[in-house]
């Protein structure tokens, strides 16, 4: 019976909630329904306005900003990729130019070397010819001198021996017999004297 009354009082208190909680003002102010309607009204008003402004004006702008940034970043990345490719191509061209110019420099160097070698050999030939000529002339002179030498020596030998004989015996000796003797001697000893 007591229990029943207790539950009934709780049940009825829901109908008179304002009166029930206004009586005990020391409790939770949250359960005081005095300003419930006001709170609901202002909540709907402020939240509604905020929702409308956010959804119609602000959030589309933010999403637009984010999208445009994303697309711009993608574009920039694409541009950077393109520039990288361009620079690769240019680097290849540069390498080619360098290798080509190296080859050219090599060939120029080789040509210059060949030319110098040719010049040197031509000059050498000329010099060699000159030297040969001079040598042969000198040889000819030497040969002539050597050929004349026995005759002169013979002559000197004949004259000296004839004079020697004249001084020794005091009589004229026939030159022709002396020259015959000298010739004979020189022919016999010629090899010894001239080293032929």
């Amino acid at each position, binding site marked *: 019976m007591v229990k029943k009354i207790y539950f009934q009082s709780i049940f009825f208190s829901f109908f008179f909630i304002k009166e029930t909680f206004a009586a005990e003002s020391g409790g939770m102010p949250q359960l005081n329904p005095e300003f419930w309607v006001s709170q609901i009204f202002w909540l709907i008003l402020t939240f509604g306005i905020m929702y409308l402004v956010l*959804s119609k004006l602000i959030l589309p702008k933010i999403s637009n*900003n984010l999208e445009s940034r994303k697309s711009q970043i993608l574009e920039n990345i694409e541009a950077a990729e393109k520039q990288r490719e361009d620079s690769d191509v240019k680097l290849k061209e540069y390498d080619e130019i360098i290798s080509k110019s190296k080859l050219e420099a090599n060939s120029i160097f080789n040509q210059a070397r060949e030319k110098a070698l040719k010049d040197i050999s031509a000059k050498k030939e000329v010099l060699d010819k000159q030297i040969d000529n001079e040598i042969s002339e000198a040889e000819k002179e030497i040969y002539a001198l050597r050929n004349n030498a026995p005759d002169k020596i013979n002559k000197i030998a004949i004259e000296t021996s004839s004079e020697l004989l004249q001084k020794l015996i005091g009589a004229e000796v026939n030159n022709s017999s002396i020259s015959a003797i000298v010739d004979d001697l020189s022919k016999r000893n010629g090899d010894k004297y001239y080293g032929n």
Partner: protein
Amino acid sequence: MAANPMSQFDVYRIGPEIKVGAFDISFTNASLFMILSTVSILLIFNLGSRKNSILPNKIQLLAELSYTFVSKMISDTAGSKAKPYFAFIFSLFMFVLFCNMFGMIPYTFTVTSHIIVTFVLAAFIFIGVTVIGFIKHGFGYLKLFVPSGVPAVLLPLIVVIEIISYLSRPISLSVRLFANMMAGHTMMKVFGGFVISLGVVGGWLPLSFSVALTGLEILVAFLQAYVFAILTCIYLNDALNLHH
């Protein structure tokens, strides 16, 4: 007034009494902080979306990070079908977050520490989600109460439990936020009162506790806003995708 830790939740009229018919819709301190929250949200996000620079300034970064945070939260929990409801969930999250955070400033009023406010939000979400569910799936939405793979013997029991848990969603959603905010603020007030009553000699311990609690409450303020929003996403996911 200061002695009672509950007096910080008092709602009082600012200005004249406004009555529409039998209803009292007077401007109160609760209304003031609702307006402050919404105005600061609109101000921040308006400033953050006005310029479109590639390198965002601080306020633009804040707006865009919040945007991506909420949009990622929604797509993670409710999938791509929830995109039309992004604006609502974003507003909800920001509103609850700003109301909670405004409550952390001394001498302010915490809008979300009132059951009626959180309950109206939760009830709106509950009704909205239910309507969306019935629109998307017709009476097939009732399959939500019949989980697959349950033995037929248990089915009557399970269905009853499912219906009760579904119907208690608005209550749990609203009470969670309201109770967290109220308990935290009451505790801070109580410890603040201890600092005064114990004075210079013994007041340091509750003061240090109060400092720690402030940090914790800021965390709770964010966390409860996040939980409120993510639970809304989960309910929305049920209505949109009907995975049961």
